[in-house]
């Protein structure tokens, strides 16, 4: 598989804290990669650097051969790298459907298919359908159709997570970064949500990187695991091998168990 995203030698320090130390990873197209590590290990920093929220002190990020290291988040989004958030970032005063329509409007505008001088809105790029239909299609796919006219503010936790991810799908991302897609979701819901998300994402065709603390979820859904510790990648392997790695057991899954206990 060709490499779609290539991070090379990323370094980032916040004062005395090293959030990334020579982090390098080449992500293959259409792969599903799980990022694991204790809190503060550098997973979210890695995602934040890819999506342009923070700029690495050193190193470069290439997306399909193009250097995206210094681009702002909106430009990176326009190129096809979208992200969801650990705490869902929604438009709480709008309905679920309106949330989707805002996103689709941005996509249409960026594609110059809608605006003041357009007689009618064009079809959404990548979907070939009008915005309303794409919104309904995605809400259906993420199991949110019943919530369509509800305000985003009053959604249950799992639905908020799903809407956050559905919002990233409007731009038809080539790469999707999911920051803890199952955090704050009940243990029973976790697998269902991940399954639904990955089914939806695969149907639309995207490479996925997801941050996850639950090792069962990781081993079931990831094809490859990047284990972070202290701003470094200490293991990069398929899930079984990575989770069996001695360093990972000591610093990640072990640390995770003790963290869960308090």
């Amino acid at each position, binding site marked *: 598989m060709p490499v779609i995203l290539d991070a090379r030698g990323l370094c980032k320090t916040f004062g005395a804290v090293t959030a990334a130390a020579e982090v390098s990873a080449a992500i293959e197209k259409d792969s599903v990669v799980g990022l694991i590590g204790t809190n503060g290990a550098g997973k979210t920093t890695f995602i934040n650097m890819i999506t342009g929220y923070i700029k690495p002190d050193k190193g470069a990020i290439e997306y399909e051969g193009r250097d995206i290291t210094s681009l702002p988040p909106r430009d990176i989004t326009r190129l096809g790298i979208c992200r969801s958030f650990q705490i869902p970032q929604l438009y709480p005063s709008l309905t679920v459907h309106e949330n989707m329509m805002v996103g689709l409007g941005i996509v249409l505008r960026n594609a110059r298919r809608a605006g*003041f001088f357009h007689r009618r809105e064009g079809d959404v790029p990548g979907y070939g359908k009008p915005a309303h239909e794409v919104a309904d299609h995605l809400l259906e796919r993420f199991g949110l159709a019943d919530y369509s006219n509800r305000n985003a503010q009053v959604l249950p936790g799992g639905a908020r997570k799903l809407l956050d991810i559905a919002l990233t799908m409007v*731009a038809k991302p080539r790469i999707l970064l999911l920051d803890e897609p199952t955090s704050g979701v009940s243990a029973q819901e976790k697998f269902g949500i991940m399954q639904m998300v990955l089914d939806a994402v695969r149907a639309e065709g995207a490479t996925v990187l997801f941050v996850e603390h639950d090792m069962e979820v990781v081993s079931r859904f990831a094809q490859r695991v990047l284990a972070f510790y202290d701003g470094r990648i200490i293991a990069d392997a398929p899930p079984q091998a990575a989770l069996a790695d001695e360093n990972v057991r000591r610093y990640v899954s072990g640390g995770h168990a003790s963290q869960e206990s308090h």
Partner: protein
Amino acid sequence: MRRERTTLLAGVILAVLLVGGPFLPQWAMFIVTIAFAQGLVALGLMLLLRAGLVSFGQALYYCLGAYAAGALGRFVGVADIFLQMVAGALAAGATAFVLGFLLAKYRGIFFGLLSLALSMILYGLLVKNEALGSTDGFNILPSTLFGIRPGPDKLRYVVMASAAIVSFVLALVVNRYLRTPLGRLAPAIKDNEIRVEYMGASARYAVHVKYVIAAVLAGVGGALAATTVGHIDPDMAFWTTSGEFIFITILAGTGNVIAPFAGALIYGAIRTTAYDLSPNTWQLSLGTALLLIIVFLPEGLWSLFKRHARNP
């Protein structure tokens, strides 16, 4: 209310005013014209308010529009009412385009107070400027229309009809803008700017555009007010003038592009009546009216016309 119904309602109001206008008494024409002028400013404020931004300094553009219209007559000798409005729009729009680079970075109280400060700078400059009449301001030439000077008995009607037509067009332009992706972004910017950026849009750009549109509307409103009153002075830039516009916007609500004009008319009526009934305590009546609106109709008077809540 759907767009077609808004267009239809606006069209009916325009037709009624154009046809029935000549039968209105002069004072009523004056009040209606001023309501159009102030309604235009409130329409711009509504755009900003939808994005969660309250400008305490819209008088800056109102006053700039008025002085641009006045200067056109004073220094160029042109008093065509449409050219006056164009001059007001250009002066306000160009200024807002430049200041927008600064203001679009700020939100909340910082945006509000910075806009207020800028309007007070203009006030200060005008007060010190002898050529523009200092605190006294100056008189505006009576309006002409495409080179024709209407007779004194016709002038009020000509100005009112022009105001109605221009307001109609601008309201429909804004109505269309509200349906574009950039226009629809307003509540999203108010709710969650991070998400807006991560969906590929620039919130700052969107705010800048809204700020310029609001200024152009205020500039046209200022030019209209100038030619209606026949006199301009620096008080048009004073912060209490901005306060009036916010009052109207809150009174009207942000639900529809016709609302700001209705709000301005009602504001004018309350103010005139209150002043008539008790010249010393009219502010008290205005304050009470605003208080009642905020408590009982937090979404403004327009919410009375909404038949269904969005989330039953």
